[in-house]
Each structure stands twice: as structure tokens, then as C-alpha cells.
């Protein structure tokens, strides 16, 4: 650990925290995985798949899991007009004809904007310091724009993509082609090609009402000051993934991707996930399954368990400008318990880094998350979330961070939402890169000092999509 003076420590942390504000509070109005392009395609409401977007209900999760397809024969549910790029009968002519497909009459894209107003009740808190001591920050009231694309080439091959633009530029968040039902019957074996978040859970990565990701990323090398992109479990990388659902209860994924590297490296990242659901709607929503209460399509009694392993190799530039090779072994699990309108998500994962810090120091990182939510009304979901981080370097002092997020997501219309969240955080020490890369604000006066519970911010987020 670098023996910084407290003044120097705070001085170095502040710039790191400033970009983290936009990063962290983007969570109050997250991007979605179900999009208005799908609503147009199927002529259906957002509420068919979402509670308060991007959170998906059981049917929406099945739609996502099925490669963005309705149960049964997908095209049966399609209502928008399509141009046939060939007719089914032309399959009999193959290979002397192009395999038939369809093209939607209108471009299958959707737009979305989101941002947040940030208020700091306590000007001395880390969150307020990151905003230059301002009581209120409206700079990011609209902070991001999204262009989504989603549709199908035919009943088996689908696509999904998302471009996000903000002050830092435009990036491809996701861009995938899904080759579905390739082997062993419906939903059993699918292949996803493109840039995507590794499937490490049975549920969509944005399965939270008050945070961005259900399983929040650690970006451990960034926590130790890396100046290049930091690998984490929730980032999207180019790769190939096989996944599937078996008998509507068991799901799995197996994938490989390039991960984060400062230069060209072999794609040595591999991961695998298994999940099992007891009760509730089957994972694929087949067999005409329906929620028990038609007035509460989100409500079911179910228990879903997940476990995963992720091996990553990163070649990154550390804080001391040396390039390091970091091998990471990550394993974790999650559990979702649903009882009617109540839902409890909990999970943890542990990253074992060989060389995450300058000097090729290894780090053992732990992330734990819990979220309890209640669909009070179809348009109002209060939720409480607790996140915990522990970093244990091979050399130096372990540090921890915990935060409590209290809030609610509110739908003004099915595609216009607001979120209100309060962030309470405490920390015992901080890594050299500050807590920002892991979504924290607390700035201890010294690397080993503690910060008691402090209200970092109250945010009011707004997001709309069309």
C-alpha cells in the first residue's frame, strides 16, 4: 500500500470519484433489455414483459431467455407488418435459394433518455465533495441517450443491440445475434454471438429497481488505480455463448470472450452458469403458462438458485504505469425468492486476482448484494438494497465498503418512469483508486481510516423510452 498522507489521499481520490458520480447515478434510470421496438413488433404494452422497466416480470425474463422470442411460434405473436425476404417453401430449393427470412416494415429501433438530479444533504460527505460541495447537481438531469434495436431474422434467429451515448462518447453496449433452438429441442441449445454481458444468472443483468445491475461490478484493478479498462463480471465483451433452458426449470450458459486488455490478447476468458427454478412460471414460459393472478402478472411463488464460475485474464496498465497480467478466478451464486408481490434477491461473488495492484500484488475481492422489493401497485415499487465490498490484498490492509440504498421506482406511464433513492454509505479504509470504480463515494481521511454511515446523496431519476 502506498503510504499517503491523508491530504494527498483525499486529493487523489476526488478526481476518481467525479466520473463515478455519473457512473453510479446512471443506475437510477437504467438502460433496458426489453425495448419499445419489441412493443411495436408484437403490438403489446411494455407491461407484458416489465414491471417497472428495465425490471422484467417472469414472462419478460422468459422472453429474454428465449432469445427475445415469444413462447410457441414467435411469428404467431408478431403484429407489425413484415417484408418476406423469401418464402418458407423456398427452403425446398436450398442450396439453390437463400434461406427465407423477414424484414420489419419499419426500422426496429427505439430511443431512450435518462438521467438524474442529485442532492447532497450533507456537504462534507464524499458524494457532495465529488460534486464540488454542491447541494444540488442538475448536470446529469438527462445524462444518457440510448438507441436500441431488437427483432428477428426469422423464428429462430434474433438480434438485439444497444448504443449508448453520453458526455464521454458513444459506445456499443450490446450487439448480439441469437441462434436459437439449434439442438436437442426447443430452447435447449442456443448460441449467442457478439458483444454481450456474460450470462451468470437466470435473470437479466438489470434486475434491480434501485440500482443499475443486480450483480454490481467491482472493477478491482481500477480500485487499485489501473489506468486502462478494468475487467469486471458485468461488462459486455465480444464473445460467443452457448445457453439454454431445459424442461422449463433448469438453465445454463457456457461462454468465452475477449475480456479487457490494453492490447490484442487471445480470448482466454471463459465462464459457466447453472440455474434452477422451483415454482412459478417455467423459465421458458412454454406450455401456455400464466401467472396465478392475472391482475398481478409479476406475482408468483418461486425460488430460483444460480451458481457461476468465471475465469478471466486481463492485460492492463497499473497505477505505476507498468503493464500487468492478471488472472482472475471468480465464483459466485445468487438466490431469488418470490412470494406474491414480494421479491428478495441475494447473492455474492468472490474474485481471486493474481496481480490486481502495482507490484503484481494479488487481491481477494468479495461482493455481496441483497435487494428486497414489493410491488405495491403496478406503478409503484419501493425497494431496499444493501451492497457490501471487501478487498483483501496480499500485501496491505483489507478495506470494506457497505452501502444502503433506499428508494422507489414509479411509473408515470408504462414507458416513463421516475426513481427516488437515498444512498447511505460507510467504509473502513479505501483502496488506492478510491471506491468510485465499485460504485462508492466514501472518502476516508486516510487509507486505513473509517467513514461512518453518511448520506451521500438523494437522487431523483427520470427515464423514458419510445
Amino acid at each position, binding site marked *: 500500500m502506498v503510504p499517503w498522507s491523508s491530504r494527498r489521499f483525499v486529493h487523489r481520490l476526488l478526481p476518481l470519484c467525479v466520473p463515478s458520480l455519473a457512473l453510479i447515478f446512471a443506475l437510477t434510470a437504467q438502460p433496458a433489455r426489453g425495448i419499445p421496438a419489441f412493443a411495436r413488433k408484437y403490438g403489446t404494452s411494455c407491461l407484458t414483459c416489465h414491471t417497472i422497466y428495465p425490471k422484467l416480470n417472469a414472462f419478460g425474463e422468459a422472453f429474454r431467455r428465449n432469445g427475445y422470442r415469444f413462447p410457441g411460434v414467435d411469428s404467431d405473436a408478431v403484429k407489425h407488418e413484415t417484408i418476406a425476404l423469401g*418464402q418458407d417453401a423456398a427452403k425446398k*430449393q436450398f442450396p439453390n435459394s437463400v434461406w427465407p427470412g423477414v424484414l420489419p416494415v419499419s426500422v426496429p429501433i427505439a430511443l431512450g433518455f435518462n438521467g438524474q438530479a442529485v442532492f447532497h444533504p450533507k456537504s462534507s460527505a464524499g458524494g457532495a465533495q465529488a460534486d464540488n460541495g454542491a447541494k444540488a447537481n442538475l448536470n446529469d438531469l438527462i445524462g444518457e441517450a440510448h438507441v436500441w434495436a431488437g427483432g428477428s431474422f426469422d423464428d429462430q434467429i434474433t438480434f438485439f443491440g444497444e448504443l449508448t451515448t453520453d458526455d464521454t462518447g458513444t459506445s456499443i453496449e450490446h450487439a448480439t445475434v441469437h441462434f436459437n433452438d439449434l439442438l436437442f429441442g426447443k430452447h435447449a441449445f442456443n448460441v449467442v454471438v457478439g458483444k454481450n454481458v456474460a450470462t451468470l444468472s437466470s435473470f437479466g443483468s438489470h434486475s434491480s429497481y434501485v440500482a443499475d445491475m443486480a450483480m454490481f461490478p467491482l472493477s478491482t484493478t481500477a480500485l487499485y488505480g489501473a489506468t486502462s479498462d478494468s475487467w469486471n463480471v458485468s461488462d459486455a465483451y465480444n464473445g460467443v455463448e452457448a445457453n439454454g433452458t431445459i424442461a422449463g426449470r433448469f438453465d445454463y450458459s457456457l461462454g468465452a470472450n475477449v475480456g479487457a486488455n490494453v492490447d490484442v490478447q487471445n480470448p482466454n476468458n471463459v465462464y459457466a452458469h447453472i440455474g434452477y427454478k422451483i415454482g412459478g412460471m417455467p423459465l421458458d414460459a412454454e406450455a401456455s403458462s400464466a401467472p396465478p393472478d392475472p391482475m398481478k402478472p409479476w406475482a408468483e411463488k418461486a425460488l430460483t438458485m444460480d451458481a457461476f464460475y468465471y475465469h478471466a485474464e486481463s492485460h492492463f496498465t497499473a497505477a505505476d504505469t507498468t503493464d500487468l497480467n492478471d488472472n482472475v478466478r471468480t465464483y459466485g451464486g445468487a438466490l431469488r425468492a418470490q412470494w406474491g408481490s414480494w421479491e428478495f434477491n441475494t447473492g455474492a461473488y468472490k474474485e481471486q486476482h493474481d496481480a490486481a495492484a502495482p507490484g503484481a500484488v494479488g487481491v481477494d475481492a468479495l461482493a455481496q448484494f441483497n435487494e428486497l422489493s414489493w410491488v405495491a401497485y403496478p406503478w409503484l415499487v419501493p425497494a431496499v438494497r444493501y451492497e457490501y465490498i471487501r478487498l483483501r490484498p496480499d500485501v496491505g490492509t483489507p478495506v470494506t465498503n457497505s452501502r444502503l440504498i433506499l428508494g422507489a421506482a414509479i411509473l408515470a406511464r408504462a414507458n416513463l418512469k421516475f426513481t427516488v433513492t437515498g444512498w447511505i454509505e460507510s467504509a473502513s479504509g479505501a483502496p488506492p483508486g478510491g471506491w468510485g470504480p465499485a460504485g462508492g463515494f466514501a472518502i476516508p481521511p486516510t487509507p486505513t481510516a473509517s467513514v461512518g454511515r453518511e448520506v451521500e446523496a438523494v437522487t431523483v431519476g427520470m427515464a423514458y423510452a419510445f
Partner: protein
Amino acid sequence: MRNAAVWRQAPAIVAVRAAVLAVLTLLVCSGLALAAGGTVTGKVDATPAKFLEETVVYLKEVPGTYAPKTIGLDQKAKTFLPHVLAVTAGDTVTFLNHDTIAHNVYSPDNETYNLGNFKPEEARTYTYKTAGVYTQLCSLHPEMLAFVFVGQNPYSAVVDKEGHFTIKDVPAGSYTVAVWNSHLKTADKKVAVVGGQTAEVSFSLHR
């Protein structure tokens, strides 16, 4: 006098003659009605409804020989018109090109045929020998699609937009009514046709 006698007898004779005539007329009309056959009508529902227009209701295996006909199937604005055509084995379909661009007509089904490319205002014909459904494609414009339903007999009807159908002039007897749809299916039904009467039968199509 003679006239007066005739006139005296006339009412009775006229009445008898009229009665005979009426009976004969009735018998002739009934016979004609029986000869003209009955009607089978009804309605088809489809889930999903978007496939409803690609539906033909037909009678299976009606014995007889049927005089061949020639029917047109047009191409306008890169669209086959009609979208579904019902004919009988032995019938000839004249494919017309009323577009300003060339078209090809082929089918990969049953007998399989390819009429080649033909220019605007050109017509080509094909005589169907085998009953079945022939998907009608154009290799130059892969989006074009039509179906030629070739029945064993002429007792078939393409449903209208609401799913209604009418099969006329069906000889009296008991038949199996079946439905062909491009994507959906349903079970056959039995129907008894009485000359001069209408029998109703309805279907629900599903995956």
C-alpha cells in the same frame, strides 16, 4: 252452344289441369333442385387470425369426372392475385404478368414446375395433374407468395376475410369436410348434404 258447353265444363277441367300442372311443376322443380345439389356453408376461425386468409375448405373424395377449366392468376405490383386460388386436378391456370417488370413463376411442391421468366403482358399456363397445395413463388422477387389449392374435385372454397365460405352445387350425400391452411390445422368434419338445402359446418384452426 258448343262454346257454351265448353265454357260450362271449363272450370272443372281447368282446375284438374291446373292441379296436375302444379304437381308436375313441383316434381320438376324438386327434381331440378335435387339435380342441382345442396350447399355447404360455414365459418372458419383462426388463431392467430393473421393466417385466416390462407384457408381453403373442401370436400374429400367426391367421385366423379369434372370438366377441366382455365382460371387466371394475375401478378400486379409484385403480388399474386388472388393470394389463394382453388382449382381442380386437370384445370389449367394462366399466369398473367400485369406488372412492368419481368416475373418468374415456380413451385417446389408436388409436381414441381418452373415456368421461366416472362415479360410484362406475357401469360404462361400450367395444367395441374396432381391434387395438392402448390406454393407459388417468383425467384426474381422472393417476397411474392400465392397458393394454388388443387382439389380432387371442384367442391372447395377459399374463405373470405371474415372466414366465411360457401361450396355450392354439392351432390346429395355424406361427405368429409376438410380444411387446408398454410400454418394451422383442425380436424375433419362430416356433413350430410341434401339437394336444395344448406348444410352448415364451422371450424377453429390452431397450431
